[in-house]
């Protein structure tokens, strides 16, 4: 958030209000689509992790594929300009796997548990409380001790984009990604999961 947005002048507060409103609108669109695909549900999430029902995987990769095409188009038209995302291998791998272990126990992601509460799955409330406690615990009692160690190795602050790393056009990367996703989808549909 830009510091000028926090100033208490009329223009600043109207920008701030628009900022909050846009968050609400896009969050609502995201929640609506998550609910309509039923990917909020414990049964669908565990179905993916057990390779019994890959709805969540189909949803996720479809969103990633369409989003990648849209984002790359925006970047090529100079409509957005973002810095590359940093890569920190140790936190991504260890934290990602730690998240996965908890995910299979509770059956919700941090985002889908919010939507699950919205459609009446109130056990997501326990997950939310546990998650908040875990977040407080990690920020106060774990990160101060291991945070520096975790980024001591495998850290690429300038970020790694696949297209620049491979030295090819982003559209070629998207084509490869699309080929992988579409053949995976075809295989999943053939297996009926």
């Amino acid at each position, binding site marked *: 958030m830009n510091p000028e947005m926090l100033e208490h002048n009329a223009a600043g507060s109207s920008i701030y209000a628009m900022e909050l409103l846009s968050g609400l609108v896009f969050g609502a669109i995201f929640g609506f689509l998550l609910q309509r695909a039923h990917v909020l549900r414990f049964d669908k999430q565990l179905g993916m992790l057990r390779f019994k029902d890959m709805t969540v995987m189909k949803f996720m990769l479809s969103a990633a594929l369409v989003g990648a095409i849209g984002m790359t188009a925006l970047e090529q038209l100079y409509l957005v300009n973002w810095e590359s995302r940093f890569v920190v291998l140790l936190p991504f791998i260890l934290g990602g796997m730690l998240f996965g272990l908890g995910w299979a*126990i*509770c059956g919700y992601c941090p985002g889908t548990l919010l939507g699950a509460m*919205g459609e009446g799955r109130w*056990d997501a409330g326990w997950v939310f409380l546990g998650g908040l406690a*875990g977040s407080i615990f990690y920020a106060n009692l774990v990160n101060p001790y291991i945070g520096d160690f975790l980024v001591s190795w495998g850290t690429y602050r300038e970020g790694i984009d696949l297209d620049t790393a491979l030295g090819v056009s982003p559209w070629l990367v998207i084509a490869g990604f699309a080929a992988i996703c579409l053949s995976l989808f075809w295989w999943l549909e053939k297996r009926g999961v």
Partner: protein
Amino acid sequence: MERRQEQPRSAPPWSPYLAGGLTGLALTLCAFFADRQFGVTPFYSWLTKCCGLLIYQRGLRAADEFGRLVIKPNWFATFAVGIIVGAALAAWLFNDFKWQGVPDTWRKRFGPSVVKRMVWGFIGGFIALMGVRMAFGCPSGLGLSGMVVLSASGFIGFAAMFLGGVIMASILYPPGCDTRGRGES
């Protein structure tokens, strides 16, 4: 929102390809109009800071200028609230709302106990959010938003999350444990 038992049939879900594709479109529009990327982890970071102020400064009233900036709601906070609103709206419009405290898959494997589900839900959420804070993102913030900008972070993060989930799922639900995998909606 009350239960609607007089209409037992709820609308069938949309194709995950359609809903996923529309999500990809939505996050592109979000990048264009709001200059933001989807993600909910900052919402938990923000809540954590608010709780920190409550604990260390004995209440938000005592917060100083810095504290007031920290707890000021940001885009990610309203985004998170929006997910709840959007899911509730979709559930209401498509007659899909259902109060349920023990998911079907869990019930078949671990029984109908609400307390058991509460304890393990809390523990699972605790572990999951520790991992999320460590990895600087959740499946939507690190995985999805990273993959759409073709960053290595998204692919590495998503692979690690999926691997951890598959390992724990195979421990909790070993092959042959008597549950039907296809979750009935």
